[in-house]
Structure formats: structure tokens, C-alpha cells
């Protein structure tokens, strides 16, 4: 009974009605001119002017540089004078034997990250929320997001000291206990697991911040009403906390899906080594080797474009799906 009321209340808040003031006559289909809307909502448009200007200048103007991907670009000649080669660069990239390995690795590693790494901060945030001791909560929160500040170069070094097969601390410990060393970093499949787990460890603390913010926005009255109705702690989590942060979860999920074609260069570069190259060669290292370090900027731009297009399409699709299941989506 209470649960029903709670859910009902939640639904009302999450799916509010959508008209301003007295223009609720949704059935009246009047076509008004632009001036009408400008006059009515001029303050909103004024506010929008700033970010739009910023975006046009600093994002869209440089986007004209995407033309590099279609040219035999040379910095000295500039955009205009470099020869147009159309899709040749794209063809070259897709013909490269190494490219498909790169694609496979990128997708697999990112999916694993998503499956393992996405829920972790959510769970952690919920657990943190349950902590009653304020000091403990504050201290642990601060500690939990420390890894976010350490650059991957340093984490890589630490991981080697910790996990290397012969001299790593963890394996030394295992050996002392009579067990065999585990090739955390030197065997391909082990490496993938290590890579994903270390990634989770680095981001989970930082990820809790947004979820904690969302949780702190939940109306106390729900919890009070639930207590009155005799709900236990776990029930409160399942039926109040999680549904209330569902929109946040969905939003972040969609945004992260858009990054499925990307990869963090520093992370792979620091944690990878030639032994596991078969699995550690990803799009960002590909761009680094073939594009940037060879100073072939058109390759780097072309691959970047490819990543952007795929990511963006995925976001649109995910957004549609989200709307289907009742969320408000991004757009």
C-alpha cells in the first residue's frame, strides 16, 4: 500500500506536466511567428546567447578543420592549398590490417568497463549514503576520489611494482603463502581483467559524486512516509533511492555510451606492454602511432571523425530507447 503511494508520488514528480502559465490549451494549433516567441521568451534567448556564442566561436569554427581528413594536409600549405583526396585516407585506414584488431579491442575493453565500472559508483554511492557517522563519511569520500587525481603514468608505475610477475609485491606475497605467481600484467586475458579492475578503482570514487548529489536531492518525506509504513532499510533503498536517481543513471549511461569508440590513451599506454599488445592496441594508441607520432594529422582527424560519428549515433539511439522506456532522455 505505502509502496504504491510512494511510487505514485515519485512518478508525478518525474513526469511533470509541461505547459507554462496559462497556455495549457494544447489542442489549439496556432502557428505563431518567430517574433511572438522571441517576445515571450526573450529572457531565455538572452541567456542562451552566451553559450551559443561561446560554442560557435570555440567549437564550430575550429570544426571547419575537419576538412583535414579529406585532404593531403600539410601545415605549411594550410587547409586551402592542401590537395583534396576525398575519402582516400578513410579507405587507407579501413584497409589497414591492424585497424580491426584496434576496433575489436576498443569495443571489448569499453564494454567491459561499462558492465563492471558503471554500476560500481552507484553501489558505492548508495552504501555511502547509508553511513551514519558524518566524519567517517566525509573522510572516506575524500579518500575514495583520490585515485582520480593521480595520472595514469604514475598509476602504471605503481601497478608494475605491485603486480609484476616476478618482483611485484602481490606475487611475492602469494609465493610466500606457497601459491604460484599470477601473471596480472604479462598474460593477455589476465591483463584485460587487471585493466578493467584498475579502471574501476580509479574512477569509482569520483563517480559517486554525481550520484550522491542526486541522492541528496530526494525528498525526505518519502523516507519518513516509508518508515511510518514500516519499510526496512533495504526496501527504502530499492523502492525510493534507486527509482529517484534512475534519471541520473540513465543520463550518465547514455552519455557514456557515446564514448564507446573512444579510449583513454594514457591509461592504455601506461598499463600496456608489448606482451599484451594483441589486446591492448586500441583506437587512441592507433591514432597516436599512425596519426600523431607520424605527424599525419589527416589520419588522426579522420579516425577522430569516425569515433565522433559512431559515438553520436549511439547517443541518439540510446536517447530514443530511453524515451521509449519512459525516461526524459537527453534531448
Amino acid at each position, binding site marked *: 500500500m505505502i509502496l504504491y503511494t510512494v511510487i505514485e508520488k515519485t512518478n508525478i*514528480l518525474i513526469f511533470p506536466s*509541461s*505547459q*507554462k*502559465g496559462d497556455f495549457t490549451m494544447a489542442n489549439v494549433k496556432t502557428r505563431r511567428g*518567430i517574433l511572438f516567441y522571441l517576445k515571450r*521568451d526573450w*529572457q531565455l534567448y538572452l*541567456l*542562451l546567447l*552566451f*553559450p*551559443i556564442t561561446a*560554442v560557435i*566561436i*570555440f567549437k564550430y569554427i*575550429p*570544426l*571547419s*578543420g*575537419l576538412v*583535414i581528413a579529406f585532404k593531403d594536409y600539410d*601545415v605549411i600549405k594550410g587547409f586551402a592549398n592542401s590537395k583534396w583526396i576525398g575519402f582516400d585516407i578513410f579507405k587507407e585506414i579501413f584497409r589497414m590490417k591492424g585497424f580491426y584488431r584496434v576496433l575489436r579491442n576498443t569495443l571489448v575493453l569499453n564494454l567491459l568497463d561499462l558492465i563492471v565500472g558503471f554500476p560500481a559508483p552507484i553501489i*558505492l554511492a548508495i*552504501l*555511502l549514503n*547509508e*553511513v*551514519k557517522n558524518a566524519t567517517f563519511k*566525509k573522510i*572516506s569520500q*575524500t*579518500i*575514495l576520489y*583520490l585515485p582520480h*587525481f*593521480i*595520472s595514469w*603514468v*604514475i598509476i602504471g608505475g*605503481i601497478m608494475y*611494482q605491485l603486480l609484476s610477475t616476478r618482483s611485484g*609485491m602481490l606475487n611475492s606475497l602469494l609465493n610466500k603463502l606457497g601459491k604460484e605467481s599470477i601473471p596480472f600484467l604479462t598474460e593477455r586475458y589476465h591483463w584485460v581483467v587487471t585493466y578493467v579492475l584498475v579502471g574501476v*578503482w580509479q574512477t569509482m*570514487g569520483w563517480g559517486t559524486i554525481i550520484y*550522491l548529489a*542526486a*541522492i*541528496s*536531492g530526494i*525528498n525526505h518525506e518519502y523516507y519518513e512516509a516509508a518508515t511510518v509504513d514500516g519499510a526496512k*532499510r533495504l526496501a527504502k533503498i530499492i523502492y525510493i533511492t534507486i527509482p529517484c536517481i534512475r534519471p*541520473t543513471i540513465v*543520463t550518465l549511461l547514455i*552519455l557514456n555510451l557515446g564514448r564507446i569508440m573512444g579510449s583513454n590513451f594514457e591509461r592504455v599506454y601506461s598499463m600496456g606492454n608489448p606482451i599484451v599488445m594483441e589486446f591492448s592496441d586500441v583506437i587512441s594508441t592507433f591514432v597516436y602511432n599512425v596519426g600523431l607520432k607520424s605527424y599525419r*594529422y589527416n589520419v588522426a582527424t579522420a579516425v*577522430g571523425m569516425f569515433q*565522433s560519428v559512431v*559515438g*553520436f549515433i549511439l547517443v541518439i539511439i540510446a536517447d530514443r530507447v530511453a524515451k521509449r522506456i519512459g525516461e526524459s532522455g537527453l534531448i
Partner: protein
Amino acid sequence: MMNLSKVTDKLADIFIYTIITLASLACLIPFLHVAVLSVSSNQAVISRKVFLWPVGFNLDAYITVFKDPSMIRSLFLTVVITILFTALGMFLTICSAYPLTRKRLKGRHALTVIFLLTMYFSAGIIPDYLLVYNLKLINTIWSLIFPLAFSAYNMIILKSYIENTIPDSLEESAFLDGCSDIGILIKIILPLCKPVLATLCLFYAVGRWNAFQDALYYITKQNLYPLQLKLNMLVNAAQDTQSISQEINITTMLAPEVIKAACIMFATLPIVIVYPFLQKYFVKGIMIGAVKG
């Protein structure tokens, strides 16, 4: 009955505290490692003898770093840049997120897509550099503030938060009271968004503090180097010895490892300290003038 629930409650508490403690310890280790490195003797450090406990304790590295006026200057500069950047970023984010949550706004969807596109598409370092150069922002702190100030990611977060937690009925009653759009924004929306605003401030501040790739190309005057750039040059200086060239090498490493560790601590601690101050905004909020039923 009551006792059983108390027991399970306590067990749950223990479970939660244990998990969080373990997670915290795991997260503390690398930081501790770097901290310990920074107070050990350099020889112990390069012999890889130091892990979680200082060997040859001394504070020389810190003395060197603090005596270096360029480090201190860089620290202040970075703080200024971070504050300006966060202020501008928050301003732009609020200005874009709020109007887009008003369903009556014509062009709402198109604008959202326009903003969203900027998150995925970028033409690379050369076009960005050309723009900053043409705007005459090279070697000014503005090159580190303007280009990246607007984050579509943050905007989406704020927009979603407003859409999902603030009912339109609040807006309606405010209009009835004669409030304007901007007024609603300031008086009603923003106070209710405190947790998310605090979060985004943190995202902006930390994002700017940690990033250095843009400064690497935009800033050549050494007295304008932000802290992370100095750090990156220091730490990565030795990395690129992959090729043999005609250059005669005198050393393969430029800075003693301890100095690097001390610089890392120096560059990281300030921002780590910011979070506790923003903590108070994360306390459970209460809906003002909530709509009943």
C-alpha cells in the same frame, strides 16, 4: 521482532562500513605511495626500495620545491585560472541548461543537439591552435579559460537534473506571482539545484586543474605555465628516450624521482582540499514549497 531487525541493521552497518573501508584503503594506496616517495631519499627511491614506508626520511624535496619561486607563482596562477574558468563555465552551463528545460521554448531540441554535437566532434590540435592564435590569445591565460569553458556534458547533467527533480508546477505558481524567467531561475531553480551545482563546480575546477594538453601548445612563456604542465614536463621528460638520435645524452633522467613525487603532491593537494568545502552543499536538501499530492 524488534531485536531481530536491530541485529540485521547492525550487520548491515558492519557490512557497509567494511566495504567502504576496504575501498578507501585501496584508493589511498597510490596516493600514500607518492607521498612516501616524496619524503624518502632519492637513492632509495630509484633503487625501487620504497613502497608504503619512507626510507631515508627527509624533507629536502619539498624544500627545493618551495624554494623555487616559479612553482609558487605557477600555483597562484593556476588557482586564478581555475577560479575564472569555473566561474565562466558555471555561468555558461546555467545559461544553457535552464532555457532548454522550458518546454515552451521554440528550437529547444535543435539547440540541445547543437550543444550535444560539440561534445563528440572536434577537429584536433591544429585547428584549435589556429583559432586561439587568430584570437591573439596565445600566451595569455584566456587561452586556458575560454576555449574549454563550455562543457556540454555538464550542461546535460544540469538540464536533466532540473527536468527530473523540479516540477513545472513550481514555475506555474511563480508566474502567477509575477516572476520573470530570469527571476525564476535565480530565486527558485538555482537554490534547488545546489547539490548538482556544487558537483559541476567541482567537475569544472578539477577538470581545469588537471588538464595541461592545451597549455602545452598555447603557453610558451615559462612564467605562465600552469602547475600541471610543469609537472607533466618534469615527469615525462625522461619517457621519450625511445629513439637514438645524434643528440649526445648526458643523463637519461632530469629530475630526481623524489622531486617529481614532491611536485605531484604539490600539484594535487590543493584541489583535493576543495571537496570538503563543497561538502555542505551535498547535504540532503529539502524541497521548498513542495507541491502537495
